[in-house]
């Protein structure tokens, strides 16, 4: 049996944090991605430009640099705002940046940009006749989105979505550098303390592989679900 030197429970906790972080940032990224895609396709010039600026900047800079900017700069930035509030209005607020929340926000913000591109392509792939038909039925904008555009868009978005999820999952490892105790950080500490890096790092790698394999299977099921009514040419 593998000797974990008592690091087992902490490693499991770390794995849970990794998973929570990944799922919550995925949710945020999907919301941001939908907003970005809508902004890019809107007729509003300002919304278009802002969305393009957001996706270009985020995708041009390494995740780790963005993360450090948010983590190290976030608290100072918020302090500046609260200081200004105190000076002008006498409001005494103190906001302490929680590491976990900061991690979710940062990763969500990064992958929102990638999701935006995925969703934009998927929305454009929906047959415009479908949308016209919906309008002809007297559906309003939101109803067309919910009943027609979104379900059909998802069919085209799932391959990109699954890809982004895999990258996101691996990106969560970076939070260990900044101070969140995810499983990579626990494993790094354990490696140094016990001088057995292979044991701990290989376990962590296997957990990542497991999550990736399970989610690959999940996405295949999801694709099947959204493919109802379509047949691939063979």
């Amino acid at each position: 049996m593998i000797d974990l030197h008592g690091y087992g429970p902490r490693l499991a906790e770390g794995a849970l944090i990794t998973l929570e972080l990944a799922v919550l940032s995925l949710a945020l990224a999907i919301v941001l991605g939908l907003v970005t895609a809508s902004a890019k396709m809107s007729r509003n010039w300002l919304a278009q430009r802002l969305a393009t600026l957001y996706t270009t900047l985020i995708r041009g800079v390494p995740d780790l640099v963005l993360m450090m900017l948010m983590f190290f700069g976030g608290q100072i930035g918020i302090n500046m705002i609260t200081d200004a509030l105190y000076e002008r209005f006498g409001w005494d607020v103190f906001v302490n940046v929680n590491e976990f929340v900061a991690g979710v926000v940062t990763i969500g913000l990064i992958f929102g940009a990638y999701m935006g591109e995925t969703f934009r392509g998927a929305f454009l792939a929906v047959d415009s006749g479908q949308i016209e038909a919906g309008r002809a039925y007297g559906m309003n904008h939101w109803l067309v989105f919910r009943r027609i555009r979104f379900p059909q868009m998802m069919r085209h978005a799932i391959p990109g979505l699954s890809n982004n999820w895999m990258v996101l999952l691996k990106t969560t490892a970076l939070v260990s550098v900044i101070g969140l105790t995810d499983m990579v950080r626990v494993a790094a500490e354990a490696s140094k303390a016990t001088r057995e890096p292979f044991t701990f790092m290989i376990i962590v790698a296997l957990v990542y592989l497991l999550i990736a394999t399970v989610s690959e299977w999940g996405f295949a099921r999801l694709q099947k679900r959204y493919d109802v009514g379509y047949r691939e040419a063979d």
Partner: protein
Amino acid sequence: MEALMTWLEAQLVDNSIFTLQTLGYYGEGLVTTVQLVFLSLIIGLVMAVPLAIGRGSRYRWVSLPIFLYCYVFRGTPLLVQLYLIYYGVVFVDGIQETWLWVILEKPFVPALIAFTLNTAAYTTEIFRGAIKSTDHGEVEAARAYGMSRGLMLRRIVLPSAFRRALPAYGNEVIFMLHASAIASVVTIMDLTGAARFVYARFYAPFDAFLFVAAIYLCLTFAILYLFRYLERRLLAHLKPASG
């Protein structure tokens, strides 16, 4: 050069953070980043070509290990791979007595190994996809000419596969540039390492990280335009015909 330096110095006189010294750190960091990325990409590329061919081999004992290699390296974070190699290399029995230790002692080589293995796995998958999508008619024509498998690969399959792989490979290059920021974690003074140093020294996260973000952005755009130029040159025949 001398005039440029004095001009630069005059510009920076009122700036407490971006002195010539810190700019020097960023400059050295840029060199390290570019070296690391360039070397790992080149070695990874050389490794990926035979691996991609072997990945499609009929023999399972050839294709299965390559599949597993790609699966593991694409399915785990680069940071974990880096830690594994960086911390792990010390514990290989007797390595500290050999000549290898002289180079492995510095973090640059373990990082280079991790990055190379990682990019080779991704590039293998990219090439495999491109090789698989070769037009079947081309392969049949080559066979009809009596070409051997090696000749066919060299003359027919690989040249067109490389071209088709170009857009995806461009993304991989940018991905590698961004991934290289991780090198700073194992005390390498790359671009991000320089930024972290400046941040720690002056406690100025915005100056330190926004400046380095701008450098990365410029590098990303340079790679983007290089690949767009290459695609225009090499993939011209695939463009839809227009009047």
